């Protein structure tokens, strides 16, 4: 197992290298001159040119890439042009907020979706099944920005129950942060929730038709135990895959939610950096997010072993032994 993890981590190096090339190229080809944007429309050509030289933008691309790569190897993501602070510091300031939002969304999505998915599978073709899968379809197709605005309209403006922007402060107590967390979490949870419910249902439907479920019933187990113990664990593998993807996406792609609710997370940081043509910030944060993405996927692969004993990463050879 440890050998497998080490092998996978070594395997991440070429992936991250490719990401670095793509990120570097994209930040260089997007239109807009960082120097001109930073100095504003009134700046003279000489001043802009001087800044370009200072930022290293006049060096050949290969030299620039080499510099970027060397910094990366030292764990240095560069210094933000717009904020004049190390990119990593800015990321570490905002990333925990994104993690908090993603975690609470994941919690909501799982708590709601799992029972719905299971019940839909157990009561296939019932009214509950049709209704919940219709809602799931709507949920999957729901644009987050629209849902976010509707939530704000209803709960913040009309009912005045919950705050609409920011994340509150710990100094006002935990309740303040929680109340700020509810609306963005629901908005961010909707799509994963719908996805989880659909995957749970289809995966469970496949499992409940298996012979070992008939065996479990023949043992005299209650239907509840047959479903929760014998079916769910076997249905978890596809769900885990989708969960891993959704977690990665929540961590890296909560841009819309964070923008609508002015949540001080990484998504907003990246959008901000793009608007300001802060290419150092953009390439640094995208590299960071790519790292998180592959890391979460690695964790999911490791988790498979716990859920499904047939998956083994040790090369032990033959499957069955004995006669």
């Amino acid at each position, binding site marked *: 197992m440890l050998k497998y993890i080490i092998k996978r981590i070594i395997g991440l190096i070429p992936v991250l290298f490719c990401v670095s090339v793509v990120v570097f190229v994209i930040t260089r080809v997007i239109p807009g001159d960082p120097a001109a944007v930073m100095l504003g429309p009134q700046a003279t050509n000489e001043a802009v040119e001087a800044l370009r030289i200072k930022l290293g933008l006049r060096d050949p691309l290969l030299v620039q890439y080499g510099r970027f790569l060397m910094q990366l190897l030292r764990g240095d993501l560069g210094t933000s042009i717009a904020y004049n602070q190390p990119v990593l510091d800015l990321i570490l300031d905002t990333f925990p907020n994104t993690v908090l939002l993603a975690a609470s969304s994941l919690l909501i999505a799982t708590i709601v979706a799992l029972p719905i998915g299971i019940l839909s599978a157990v009561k296939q073709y019932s009214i509950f099944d049709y209704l919940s899968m219709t809602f799931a379809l709507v949920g999957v197709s729901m644009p987050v920005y629209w849902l976010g605005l509707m939530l704000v309209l209803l709960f913040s403006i009309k009912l005045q129950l919950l705050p609409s922007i920011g994340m509150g402060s710990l100094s006002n107590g935990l309740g303040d942060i929680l109340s700020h967390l509810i609306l963005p979490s629901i908005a961010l949870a909707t799509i994963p929730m719908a996805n989880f419910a659909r995957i749970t249902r289809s995966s469970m439907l496949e499992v409940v038709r*298996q*012979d*070992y479920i*008939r*065996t*479990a*019933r*023949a*043992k*005299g*187990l*209650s239907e509840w135990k047959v479903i929760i113990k*014998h079916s769910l*664990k*076997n249905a978890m593998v596809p769900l885990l895959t989708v969960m891993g993807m959704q977690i990665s996406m929540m961590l890296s792609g909560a841009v819309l939610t964070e923008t609508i609710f002015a949540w001080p997370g990484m998504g907003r940081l990246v959008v901000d950096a793009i608007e300001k043509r802060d290419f150092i910030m953009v390439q640094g944060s995208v590299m960071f997010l790519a790292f998180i993405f592959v890391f979460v996927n690695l964790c999911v692969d490791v988790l498979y072993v716990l*859920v*499904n*004993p*047939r998956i083994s990463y040790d090369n032990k050879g033959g*499957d*069955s*032994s*004995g*006669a």
Partner: protein
Amino acid sequence: MSNELLRVTDLRTYFAAGPDPAKAVDGVTFSLNEGETLGIVGESGSGKSVTAMSIMRLIPNPPGKIVSGEIIFSGKNLLQLSEAAMRRIRGNEISMIFQDPMTALNPSFTIGNQIAEVIELHQKMTSKEAGKVAVEMLKMVGIPEAEERAKQYPHQFSGGMRQRAMIAMALSCKPKLLIADEPTTALDVTVQAQILNLMKKLQKELNTSIIMITHDLGVVAETCDYVAVMYAGRCVEYSDTVTLFDNPLHPYTWGLLASQPNLDSKEKQKLKTIKGNPPDLRNLPLGCNFAERCPHAQHICFEKEPQLSEIENNHLTACHFSKEWLSSRGEVS
């Protein structure tokens, strides 16, 4: 005579399939005594497995439904029990082993855990005690290094070992009745004999009755005291095993027996088959279900359904001409 453990009377289990239900089991009657083995034979789709699942009351509903009949087990009519009462019987008083041990065990739990689960459930033991009994059971079915094996998962077992584990699981609560649904069909021939011997040995030790569902007459000859031959959802012949092989009285049973390969014949012969196909269970004929394929069928066979009736002592058949077959056999012998 030993005590009667199970009596199934006029069992009918239908499956909803379009406008007409498929009559998978259509009026099956048989009985089984304590410590004895009843074989249920017949070709695929004759209703053998559905009969077994009906006794366990594990017919998926919908689409399946037990429409009528009686299943008297130890004096109780199983069809009138509540679901909770039935759960206390399943795995405890009646247990079951299935055809394919590859898929009948849960891949996500260890063998020991799966056996201990049923013991814990019915014997009111702690999980630790149940675990110990599970290891004992594995030893009893001849699995070497049982302590270690109990911690392994089904995919680490071979087919024969898995079927042994299934038997250990099924017998762990010392059931009065074991239903074995083609327990050797998916196994190698050498392993088949081991499993059958094991079942016979354990049956003697525990005085368990067995219903052996199979399409293999060799298995029947080797293990069963009584045989019920099923065709298209009905029991067409019932007798003790020796009588059935020596003096079968239903043309379908003749066909079944004739279709067995015979190594003694001097010339190489083509295997005999029963011509035609079983009838559509949704649209059964008016008369005898076998009439279309029966070489001896007469006018009455297409018009009137023959009832299962006793022709000689404890030998029942459902054929209009059984008595004639009996007397003609008598003349021959």
